[in-house]
């Protein structure tokens, strides 16, 4: 088991390198370059060449990439071209802010999605099942930037009950978890929670319904177990695939949502990524992507380990 975890940790390295290669190639396929984004339009060719050389952008792409990779291996993620601050000092605070939003959203969606899914899966009444499924489908299908704007129109513009954008009245630096700050969290968190809630409700419903049809449930009834105990059996059987879905959803939210963070001006990784793409800020972009890819891989690893703990048929060595 320890060996398995170690091996899985080592696997993360090639996965993350792969992600950065893809990302690196895509940004160079796209038109535009970082230099023309920072320099005025009438800058002389000599100045452009000079700056290019300073950032190493005059070298061939593979060399550029390898140099960057070597620096990263040494813990140096470079300097943002736009802000001239180190990438680390840009990315880390953004990660913290996105994490705050993501954890709030995921808590809401796990609680709501699982409850609804269990209700629908265990209900023998068609109406309950159908209406929950309908809600879940709507939740999955609604584009969340649209939902975000609608929520803003309703709660911020019409009722003026909640702030529309930003991360708190005191700016983005101090968080005191008072209502003033928390109120800024409500709309973006609800918006972000919508899709995972729908996905979870549907998967939990489907898994529970499938497990309930299995023969062993007859055995459990046949040996006279009480309902809560049978419920426990069904939930434990349904859990492993649900955990995988929860992990994916969590990792996705941790990655930050470019759309939602832009709509609500939430200064997280999505916001940062958006800015980095717009300005072709290569070091910042790569640095953010690496952090997000690491989150993804680690979350999946955690899910795999949890699954092994629950389902004895999944033995990993």
């Amino acid at each position, binding site marked *: 088991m320890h060996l398995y975890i170690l091996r899985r940790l080592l696997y993360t390295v090639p996965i993350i390198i792969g992600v950065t290669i893809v990302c690196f190639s895509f940004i160079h396929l796209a038109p535009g370059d970082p230099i023309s984004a920072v320099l005025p339009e009438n800058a002389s060719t000599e100045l452009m060449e000079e700056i290019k050389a300073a950032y190493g952008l005059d070298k061939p792409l593979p060399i550029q990439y390898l140099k960057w990779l070597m620096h990263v291996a040494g813990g140096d993620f470079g300097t943002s071209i736009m802000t001239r601050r180190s990438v680390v000092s840009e990315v880390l605070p953004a990660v913290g802010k996105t994490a705050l939003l993501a954890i709030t959203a995921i808590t809401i969606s796990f609680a709501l999605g699982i409850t609804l899914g269990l209700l629908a899966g265990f209900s*023998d009444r068609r109406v309950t099942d159908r209406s929950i499924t309908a809600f879940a489908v709507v939740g999955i299908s609604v584009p969340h930037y649209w939902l975000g704007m609608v929520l803003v129109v309703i709660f911020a513009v019409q009722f003026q009950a909640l702030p529309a954008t930003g991360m708190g009245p005191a700016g983005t630096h101090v968080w005191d978890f008072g209502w003033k700050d928390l109120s800024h969290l409500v709309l973006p968190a609800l918006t972000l929670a919508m899709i995972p809630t729908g996905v979870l409700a549907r998967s939990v419903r489907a898994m529970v319904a499938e497990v309930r049809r*299995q*023969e*062993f449930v*007859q*055995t*459990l*009834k*046949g*040996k*006279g*177990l*009480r*309902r809560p*105990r049978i419920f426990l*059996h069904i939930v*434990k*059987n349904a859990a492993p695939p649900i955990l995988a879905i929860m992990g994916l959803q969590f990792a996705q939210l941790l990655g930050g949502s470019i759309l939602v963070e832009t709509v609500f001006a939430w200064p997280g990784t999505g916001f940062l990524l958006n800015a980095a793409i717009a300005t072709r800020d290569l070091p910042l972009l790569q640095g953010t992507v690496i952090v997000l890819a690491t989150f993804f891989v680690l979350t999946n690893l955690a899910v795999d380990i949890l699954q092994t703990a*629950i*389902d*004895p*048929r999944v033995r990993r060595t």
Partner: protein
Amino acid sequence: MPHDPVVEVSDLSVRFVNRDLDLQVVDGVSFSLAAGEVLCLLGESGSGKSVTMRALLRLLPDYARIGGKIRLAGKDVTTMTDRQLEAVRGPVGAMIFQEPMTALDPVFTIGTQISETIVSHEGVSYREARKRSLELLEMVQIPSAERRLDSYPHELSGGLRQRAMIALALSCRPSLLLADEPTTALDATVQIQILLLIRSLQRELGMATIFVTHDIGVACEVADRVSVMYAGRFVETGPVADVIGRPGHPYTAGLLRSTVHAESRGQLLESIPGGPPDLADLPVGCSFGPRCSQHHAACDAGVPAMVPIGEGRMARCLRPLLATAEAA
């Protein structure tokens, strides 16, 4: 009350009803069984034997409607609340399923699955229940039982799994054991071991036992009495040796002719003409009529009644084979 029957069923009927179907799956089944007796329900797939058995513990889907009377250990099962049913399932009637791989929960150990049953019925501690579980595994002759207690179902062979299933069924010392084709999913060599095990445990513990099977060989091996089912009804019932030796109903005779046994070596097996009955579209008269070689006009007038055809024997036939044999 050792002389009271453990099971008393009278005029049991089961209908499956939902939006697009209404099937009479079991119709007018009556029997009773005393402690220590073994009854075998024999019939093809879809003849209602499994449903009959599951009805005894009300282990049927929601769309099943049960009619008639079922008394287990003197109590009427048909009117019980869920709570009362939970108390009956296990200590009064316990069930062994056909496929132990799917009938055991894959993510709980054998030990837990047996122990939780004992705990929920007898309120003992898990530690005490585990001790009992170990004794049960030893009783069903599972080697290195201590270790198997912590095994998951997928870690055991088919035969061991079925033994564990039997241990589970016996965990609350039931007075009625229900076995739903317990050997069908097993290898031929394991089948006979399991059969002998059930038979010896049944005798040792004096349980009334109902065995569902489509295998006449199994019936001969374990049963005292046999009831042959066709299209949801008993068509013949009696002591196993008599029914197998001299079948009274043409369907029983047909079943026997289509089964391999020692005397049939070198002969072609005879099959019953026609296909299994469609429950949604049964004939007005005898449901076996269309496939019966003895069929005549009177058979279509209405469903024949069960009539006595000998010592402890009944058949649902207007012209039972015994009568014609004796007349000839």
